[in-house]
């Protein structure tokens, strides 16, 4: 096929626009990376763009030797792993059950679940609930409340619904139990959606700080995101509250902020490329209904 002139022009413009988009999205990130390797004075003087100026690694060394940072980091890993495992078990089983047309009260359960997408009890009732369950200052307050994301569950449900029923019939004729069918037939066939969900939940858990902020009172249980947030927003919010005491207005070096940001996003950034192919196919699932 021969390309028309218009098509060539379109391609050029297309590429230009996309390059611009790449620049706009990548620049802030690369700027932070550059800042993390730069000297504080150079950053204040506004000299750092994409290339580090006044190269220094001491901030990295300081932060990597900071015990609080590592405690938070370990907490985040524990919360993310456990949170994701729990969420996957809960979401998969719930979605699978709801995908079966023969389930009694299916509509009721589905609408119950959907109800929570639009309405919730609010901050204080949630807090009181967690407190009365005795979960404050425990890991459960972090990993349980977000265990089922209804949105994710619905995506999974439509994925399971799209599976041919004959498959399960055949399995049951061959003597497979319900659980056997689910574990040995359905799940292996659902790898793309499972990978997508793991990614969703893992990223969500890694990035979340609000639950930890609400339910945890001891700083050695804080995840790294809360540590980061305090570092980034602490000084500013002190000022907006009208702080008069100079001690509280201490500026945190832009360089320290940058290093912490880089270290915090690094692991999840490294996971992305590997799950990305599932991610694209997974997100499209359920967009077309047969």
């Amino acid at each position: 096929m021969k390309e028309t002139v218009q098509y060539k022009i379109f391609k050029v413009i297309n590429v230009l626009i996309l390059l611009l988009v790449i620049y706009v999205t990548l620049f802030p990130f690369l700027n932070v990376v550059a800042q993390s390797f730069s000297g504080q004075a150079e950053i204040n003087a506004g000299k750092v763009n994409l290339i580090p100026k006044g190269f220094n690694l001491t901030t990295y060394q300081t932060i990597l030797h900071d015990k609080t940072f590592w405690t938070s980091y370990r907490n985040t890993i524990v919360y993310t792993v456990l949170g994701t495992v729990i969420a996957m078990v809960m979401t998969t089983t719930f979605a699978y059950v709801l995908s079966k047309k023969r389930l009694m009260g299916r509509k009721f359960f589905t609408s119950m679940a959907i109800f929570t997408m639009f309405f919730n009890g609010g901050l204080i009732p949630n807090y009181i609930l967690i407190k009365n369950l005795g979960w404050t200052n425990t890991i459960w307050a972090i990993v349980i409340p977000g265990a089922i994301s209804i949105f994710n569950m619905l995506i999974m449900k439509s994925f399971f619904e799209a599976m041919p029923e004959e498959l399960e019939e055949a399995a049951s004729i061959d003597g497979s139990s319900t659980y056997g069918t689910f574990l040995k037939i359905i799940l292996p066939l659902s790898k793309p959606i499972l990978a997508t969900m793991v990614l969703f939940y893992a990223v969500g858990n890694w990035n979340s700080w609000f639950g930890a902020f609400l339910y945890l009172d001891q700083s050695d249980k804080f995840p790294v995101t809360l540590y980061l947030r305090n570092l980034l927003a602490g000084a500013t919010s002190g000022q907006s509250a009208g702080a008069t005491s100079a001690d509280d207005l201490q500026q945190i070096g832009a360089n320290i902020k940058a290093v912490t940001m880089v270290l915090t996003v690094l692991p999840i950034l490294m996971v992305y490329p590997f799950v990305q192919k599932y991610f694209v196919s997974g997100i499209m699932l359920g967009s077309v209904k047969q």
Partner: protein
Amino acid sequence: MAKILKKLAFLVAIVTALSSLLAGCSSDKSSSTTASAPKDKGVAMADYGVGKTFKATKPISFTTMYNDAAWYAFKKDWLLWSEITKRTNVTLKPTVVPMSDYAQKRSLLISSGDAPLIIPKTYPGQETPFVSSGAILPISDYVKYMPNFMDKVKKWNLQPEIDNLRQADGKYYVLPGLHEEVWPDYTLAVRTDIFEKNNIAIPKTWDEFEAALKKLKEIYPDVTPFSDRWSTSGSVSPLGALLQYAAPTFGTVGGWGTSNYVTFDQDKNKFVFAGASKEYKEMLTYFNGLIKEGLLDKESLSQSDDQAVQKFVNGKSFVISSNSQEIVTMRTSMDKTLGAGKYSIAKIDVPGGPKGNVIAGSRLENGIMISAKAKDDPNFKALLQFIDWFWYSDEGEELAKWGVEGTTYKKENGKRVLMPDINFLGLNPSGTKDLRVDYGFGTGSFAYGGTTDLLQSTMSEEEVKFQDSMHQNKKVLPVNPPYPMSATDQEQATLISTPLTDTVKQNTAKFILGTRPLSEWNAYVSELKAKGMDKYLDMVNKAYQDYQKKSK
């Protein structure tokens, strides 16, 4: 699907109807009961008073919130905690809250009834939302059990300022940090080397300031000598810091210094709307003049703080607003950009204006709220004595700020000096340990207020000089009298005041920039009137008069 939605909608309707019914039933907690003597199980001291160290007769513990700053993260094994226990028999059990979202968590804990007994780091005004719920202790009923607090209020004549904390019921709910004197921090920072080189005297009035800028402009035609910051950060207000310290010298209020642009007119004995006053206009005219002549950078009202600082540290401007911390930060930058020794900068005294050499400010700082449930605590009296000792006695304040004599600091000729291996805010750069990071002293949660001597003990020599000069040359204006409103009035007043304040802020920026000519001043005042300025003033003045009657 449509069916489900219908059912859902119905369900929702029922639930909301029910809940509003229930809400209507909930009883209104009234706090009109007179305060009884605080409970005590024999733990409090019988002979506690000024000059005495509080020590509980038996070991007890109190819960407290702790404001955790990232740059000195909370540690359980700080000397601070063990020293408090050693001296007072009190163990503090902290709820650690990240500084970034302290206010939100405080509000959550109070609303859910789960708040610790001691709630420090509360700025006057922040307690108001919790007053009507009855969750916060009306501490004014109990200050008689706090001898150090009473003593300092009396000694430093702080009662008028304390009265400003009173709510409509005549009580106050927050114990503020107390300062002996007003503490001016924000002012202009100038390139003193440039001023000296060109034989320009450091300006003492705003007129001299304008003349100095003019001279600079003549000598450096491609430089805009004054480029300011703090228009876009903090509680956003055009030229927030500059107008705050300039306004009193023009006889008005502005910038960060006001939340509703209302100020008290001593002659008329009533409140007036400063945003519409001729003094305010005069101030705007002055700064508009600076812009017109190209002396003040137009971008001052829109640029970020970083941008403004970058101009200053790169020698593209010679004057900027600053405070004691910022000037140190700028110096480190300028050592890199201009080279150490090739420049000099300093904070100068706030220039005087048409109303003379005056400064305004409160001597109250952030302080402590106490949970209402404390009064049911068997050790309530001991709690009051402990708070009084730790936050208001000279000994307690010194402990919170400097730590333990002989361990973290020593006294040489009556001056406090850090131990050789300890650093604090750059006072002892050779120290390997940090007073805050490694010991927990000098932190924002517990160390505030105090005597001028204590306040200045951690300042650099340069800053102390600035403070002394400001105190000697400036007259401190009296504070506005209180005008407490009931919760419902307050709500209504806020509804009027918010758009009013926004209008003033927007037009302040426009008038200074010149995008709206000052000839339209009268039209602007009519706009304010249309937005309910007079009604708002009436409410404020009525509340003021009611309070005057009540307190007689």
